[in-house]
């Protein structure tokens, strides 16, 4: 990875205090994001994808801390910046939207006042122009009747509207990165599609780089330029959409893809599921964190930690058996 990326995260390790000392909720996560790119981080709940997003903005829960790694934004190291300096990054350079839009806005202030506030903490704009920009932003996120919504309280709006407002607030200062943490999980399916469409549209218009955190493979398939697959705090695989969907190398990714039902499945088809459950995050196996559930695990898998290796240009996998696995895969293809 060269130093010219918009955002570069390297070997990040987020630890929480636990029963037996600290445990890592995120371990060795490494990726980069370029302008205009949509990078999806996909994984089950508890896989560390949200913590990865929060660590970029320095918004981890109080007990957690980043124990190792670097986060570079346009070449500038963000970890170790003071809170004061982070105020200038959040919302201005890197923004974030959250899972449940209905509870992500302050309920006792109007949408307009929250927008104007977000604009005015980052710019020297006077109130009048901030109001104008707010209305413009509401229009940009396709809110019908921006004037009315401007004066509304969040509880008067639907979930989809709230998420649009959140996006308007996130983008009002023209950040270059947007971290979207499960932005549609709490919304109806139709609204979900509209919000995702809006994100793609905004990306096309502003070339903003988006990190989309989700557990929904359908969303990933429809939107991602590149994909990171996470499991139990570790990266299992990273590659382009093509890489991950057409040539998944990691047994976990392969299992995950087999779990997605499709319309052309024969009747009575039993959907695949990955055997076992995610091990306790405080009591992880010494080797590969997936070894307890992996169909291909061998003895050494449970002892040796696999490293993230670049198997093909841009395609990274963290599995000891990966060459073998890919041969098997190639065997299937024949």
């Amino acid at each position, binding site marked *: 990875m060269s130093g010219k990326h918009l955002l570069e995260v390297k070997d990040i390790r987020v630890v929480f205090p636990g029963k037996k000392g600290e445990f890592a909720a995120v371990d060795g996560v490494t990726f980069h994001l370029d302008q205009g790119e949509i990078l999806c981080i996909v994984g089950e709940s508890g896989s560390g994808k949200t913590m990865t997003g929060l660590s970029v903005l320095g918004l981890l829960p109080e007990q957690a801390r980043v124990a190792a790694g670097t986060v570079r934004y346009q070449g500038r190291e963000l970890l170790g910046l003071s809170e004061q300096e982070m105020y200038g990054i959040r919302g201005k350079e890197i923004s974030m939207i*959250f899972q449940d839009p209905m509870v*992500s806005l302050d309920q*006792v202030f109007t949408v307009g006042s929250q927008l104007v506030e977000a604009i005015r903490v980052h710019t020297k704009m006077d109130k009048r122009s901030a109001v104008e920009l707010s209305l413009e932003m509401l229009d940009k996120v396709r809110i019908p009747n921006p004037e009315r919504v401007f004066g509304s309280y969040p509880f008067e709006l639907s979930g989809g509207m709230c998420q649009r407002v959140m996006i308007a*607030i996130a983008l009002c200062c023209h950040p270059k990165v947007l971290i979207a943490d499960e932005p549609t999980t709490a919304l109806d399916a139709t609204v979900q599609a509209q919000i995702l469409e809006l994100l793609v549209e905004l990306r096309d218009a502003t070339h903003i780089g988006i990190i989309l955190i989700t557990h929904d493979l359908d969303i990933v398939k429809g939107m991602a330029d590149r994909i990171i697959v996470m499991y139990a705090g570790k990266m299992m695989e990273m590659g382009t959409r093509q890489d991950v969907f057409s040539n998944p190398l990691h047994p976990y990714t392969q299992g995950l893809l087999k779990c997605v039902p499709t319309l052309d499945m024969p009747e009575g088809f039993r959907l695949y599921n990955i055997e076992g459950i995610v091990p306790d995050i405080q009591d992880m196996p010494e080797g590969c964190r997936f070894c307890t559930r992996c169909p291909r695990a061998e003895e050494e898998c449970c002892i040796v930690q696999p490293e993230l290796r670049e198997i093909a240009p841009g395609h990274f996998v963290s599995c000891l058996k990966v060459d073998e696995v890919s041969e098997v895969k190639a065997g299937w293809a024949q």
Partner: protein
Amino acid sequence: MARFFAKRTLTAIIQVLIVTTIVFFALKMMPGDPVLLMLSRDGSSVDPAAYEALAKQLGLDKPILRQYRNWLTGLFTGDLGMSYTERRPVMDAIGDRLPRTLELAGASLLIAVVIGIPLGIAAAVKRGSWVDLLLTGISSLGQSVPVYVFGYILVLIFALNMRLLPSSGYVPIHRNPVEHFRRLILPACTIAFGFSASMLRMTRSSMLEALSSEFVRPLYARGLSKARVHMKHMVRNMLIPVVTIIGLQLGALIAGTVLCEAVFNWPGIATLLVKAISNRDYPLIQGCMLILSIIFIVTNMVVDLLYGLLDPRAR
């Protein structure tokens, strides 16, 4: 809003009527006879003829329902009757005493708000630190020490030992404003101690709740500073429950002034009421209760309206 206000006013009037009715009949069930008390002040035996005459003069010879009706008619014409012991209209006696009690309660409320709310915010923001421990420790003390104990402790320290302030009494403001306020300090602080303690606790827990709400992280994600998140967003959210509870506590505040007025010899409506009860001065008791319940109900109404202003969801 006007409709809401009209509805609240109507219920308030009904509430006042119910309270005074209960008080009226409760008084009649209370042992003790005002006529006897008035006539036998010097310990002599009572002449039956004089008894009859006085009872007739006070209207106490009539059936109880008739007495109640008379009182109600008086109420609606603005006449609360004559006090037996004060020997002047009840309205006048209350008019003298009420402002003093309101002044005392107002001063206590002001001190309690100024001390309790900021310290409650500080305790919540520094949760778990020694600041928090110290403040919550003092506040449990403040909540558990009764007014008459704390009042005398203050007198002991500031009046008797340090000789900074007068121990008790009252000087009308138009006669000597400086002395007036010097005599207000100790009683007001006495009530404010317990009141600010409970306000601190309410503020603290309400602030902690605000701080743990889901929208805090999104506020930071916009680039808002900690000071801004705390002082604007958290405080505004925290105030909604706190204002409601303050309103509910105003009743306790008025009850607190009864003891405090006694300790500091502050001639307010509470001491008047206590005296009226021991003399079975029916019109005066009725009048005081009427005024106190009106105050109580009106403050609650104001709190309801304030709540609507603070919380857009309640409008």
